[in-house]
């Protein structure tokens, strides 16, 4: 699996309702040591309800300047949440087109928790 297998992919909840897109992967450096640094563990997925683009990252940081740009990006990403990896029920299998008409999606587990995505 590579990061872009998950990025930009639509996210469905357990009932099949579309809840957003994966805009980023949250990693935590607490995996087993591997060289000078610990291995980054995939901690969860950052899901934005509206847009696949997230490049500026304003919705997750405390930076509020320059005001108009920060404001616009935050507006566009209102409702962005973090879902833990343990709450992910299934991810698209790379290279396996299940149904060509159906876009591959990440499906979340029933009873998953929406966490605050701020860093």
């Amino acid at each position, binding site marked *: 699996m590579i990061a872009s297998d998950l990025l930009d992919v639509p996210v469905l909840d357990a009932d099949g309702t579309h809840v957003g897109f994966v805009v980023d992967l949250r990693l935590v450096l607490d995996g087993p040591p591997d060289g000078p*640094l610990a291995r980054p563990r995939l901690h969860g997925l950052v899901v934005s309800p509206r847009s696949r683009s997230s490049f500026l990252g304003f919705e997750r940081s405390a930076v509020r300047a320059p005001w108009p740009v920060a404001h616009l990006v935050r507006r566009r990403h209102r409702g962005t949440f973090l879902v833990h990896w343990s709450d992910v029920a299934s991810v698209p299998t790379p290279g396996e087109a299940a149904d060509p008409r159906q876009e591959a999606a990440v499906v979340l587990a029933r009873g998953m928790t929406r966490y605050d995505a701020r860093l």
Partner: protein
Amino acid sequence: MRRRRPERWSGPLAPEPRPAGRVLDARLHLLDRQVLDDDEVPVCTLDDLELEPVDDGATPGPHAGTRPAGAATVVVTALLSGPVLRTRIFGGRPPSSRWQSVAWRHVRDLGTAVRLGVRGDDLDLTWPERWTRDHVVGRLPGGRHDPEGRS
């Protein structure tokens, strides 16, 4: 294919408990950053990350059974560059045999650039640079001249 607009969630978000290690977002802090080698020489741009499930004996999550890889913990094992850039721009996915990677154990430091603890010339993925050096630039007169006058 047009998708229905995602439903708005109006409920409160749970506060995220701070994990024990350093927290990074892949796209925000890693992807598309410059990778430098031990001598601060640019090696590549970080185009993608390789993720692998590990069986570290941790208790599998409640839904582990439905996950394709079947393991609860997924870790980053390598930095990728090269052909994965084309597919990130134009879509699709290169076969894993064509990924050019740097193992995570070579990463020394993460900042505004990703710093490696090895020399770039020792890595497989710098072959186009070495090829250009050996076949073109190194053969032109003065190609090995140091413009700063260090011998």
